[in-house]
């Protein structure tokens, strides 16, 4: 088997989340199912343009199709955003180690997401919702830059109805009257959360700067480094622990992550940019 060659997937649906974020629903062209563990990532190819890593945002319980939520931010995603339903892309994977959901059982799970960082967390959230009774409590803190930048706007009303799931949201800034929830960076939501620190895990995903300050804030709240799970993103190129691009200390993010505890990363130079 050639580990570097992708399989073909058809884009069957595109949802425009924000002006620069789209969710693509992809279906294997050969009719096979696609299984992954929540938090694992895939390498997505736009043929002739490039390949880049993304974490599926759909539930791993759904294997006929996968969703990936992608921000238009570079050369490859620019082209990806111009694709239409019916177009073919390539996928390799899934790769890496996802969220250790079994370790969360019986605990309070505090999920903190920033911007498009909610994509992998949506997959985690859908997994947890599937087994909601096994967790003591689930709290989602989500921050976006402006109300327009909030992703999955259509899903929040549904999630708010889920018993055992609490949702807090913030935006960094907004026009008067545009937002009736918290205004401020996502870490300020943590001031409003009361958790049983001893029996709680925190799961963080977002831009590097947000991950950094959220981690500091959690440490400040007395979370131990082993209780903080971070979904790290680098420029994973091969996804197989070979090409070297995503090295962080002695870890390859693609193989040993992308989910790490802060305990694993705290002594490594420049974990967040």
């Amino acid at each position: 088997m050639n580990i570097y060659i992708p399989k073909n997937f058809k884009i069957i649906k595109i949802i425009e989340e924000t002006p620069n974020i789209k969710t693509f629903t992809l279906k294997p062209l050969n009719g096979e199912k696609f299984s992954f563990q929540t938090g694992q990532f895939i390498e997505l190819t736009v043929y002739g343009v490039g390949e880049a890593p993304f974490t599926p945002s759909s539930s791993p319980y759904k294997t006929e199709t996968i969703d990936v939520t992608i921000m238009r931010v570079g050369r490859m995603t620019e082209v990806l955003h111009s694709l239409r339903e019916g177009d073919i892309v390539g996928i390799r994977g899934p790769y890496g180690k996802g969220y250790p959901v079994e370790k969360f059982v019986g605990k309070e799970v505090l999920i903190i997401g920033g911007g498009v960082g909610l994509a992998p967390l949506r997959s985690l959230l859908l997994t947890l919702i599937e087994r909601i009774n096994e967790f003591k409590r689930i709290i989602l803190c989500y921050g976006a830059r402006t109300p327009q930048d909030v992703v999955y706007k259509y899903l929040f009303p549904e999630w708010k109805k889920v018993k055992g799931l609490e949702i807090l949201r913030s935006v960094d800034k907004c026009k008067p009257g545009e937002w009736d929830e918290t205004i401020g960076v996502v870490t300020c939501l943590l001031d409003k959360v009361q958790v049983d620190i001893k029996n709680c895990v925190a799961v963080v995903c977002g831009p590097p700067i947000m991950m950094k300050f959220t981690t500091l804030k959690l440490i400040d709240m007395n979370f131990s480094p082993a209780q903080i799970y971070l979904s790290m993103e680098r420029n994973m190129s091969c996804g197989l622990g070979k090409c070297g691009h995503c090295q962080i200390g002695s870890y390859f993010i693609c193989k040993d992550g992308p989910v790490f505890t802060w305990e694993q990363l705290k002594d490594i130079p420049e974990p967040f940019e």
Partner: protein
Amino acid sequence: MKRRVSYADFIDILNGLLEKEQKLIYYPLNNGHLSNTSVNKDLKNFSLLNIRTIEPIKLLFFPVKDSLVDKIELKQRIGVGIKWCDIQAIKVLDKIFLSDYVDESYKNYREQTLIITTDCINPQQNCFCSLVGGKPYVEQKDGISDLNISFVDDNNLILESFSLTGDKFLQEYFNNFDEPTKTEELQRDSNREVANKKIFNHNIEFLKEENEKYYKTLKHTYEFDKIWDSASEKCVQCGGCNFICPSCYCFLIREASESFENQFRDKVWDVCHFTGYARVAGGANPRKYKYQRFRNRYQCKFVYRYENFGFYACTGCGRCIDVCPAKIDIRKVIRSLVLAKGEEVIVKK
């Protein structure tokens, strides 16, 4: 299995392999370069007397550019005259390309290549395998090698097989030769001792320490960033040290398909010193300063891969010292860190 062969007979037999059996033979030239098999019809300018070739042996298994789509039918190949430093580097590459997910192309190149190693009889100023736990000759316990060539004197060689493939090769082509005598083996050992002394003397100003000392010295501490900053001051980030390094394995996947029905991609060597190496879409860069990238390369060799594999990814070949336009010497950089950290400097006389 051991055989004693004259230098001239050895070359004759290899020439026969080249002509009659059309085997691809990669060998060291007397000008220090690695031969290019495609242009050689006989072993012209063959020499075993130099140090490792200028080009790293990784080229045999991990070409600068290698298609990930086309499956190549490889002829059996022979790499002759490979030194300890390149053997150690192949160990690193094997760990990367053959563990977890197997890189089929690399595996194919490795399986189709008979590795014939040789002693270094005349280590040069920039050789420092002794500092990273190595030595200027290969033994069976070092692995990788199928067959080793060592020197009784300039005209007589001892061939010693280290693997089943090596055994077969000796039986097939060198069966008519005698086993070396005890005296000849002792002469060989004393040649090795001379090489050992030479390499020790070339490195006398540097550290002769326990292996894990480098690991401790180079393990990250932020207060030494200023030393990395000054050590990397002259570095022009040309990437020469990465390309020439026998154990640097980083590559980029270049996606160049015409369409989903006509896929093409290849892997191309990449360089961790380049600004864009770790940069992600959107422009964020975990190692945006030169000193961070410079430091990362040292830590990759002496800290990270050591943690992964239990041995250093630097093999002491000294190619990076030879190639550097800024004359940066890896040994001096490490020494400056040791001195700055105030650790004991032991020079064994």
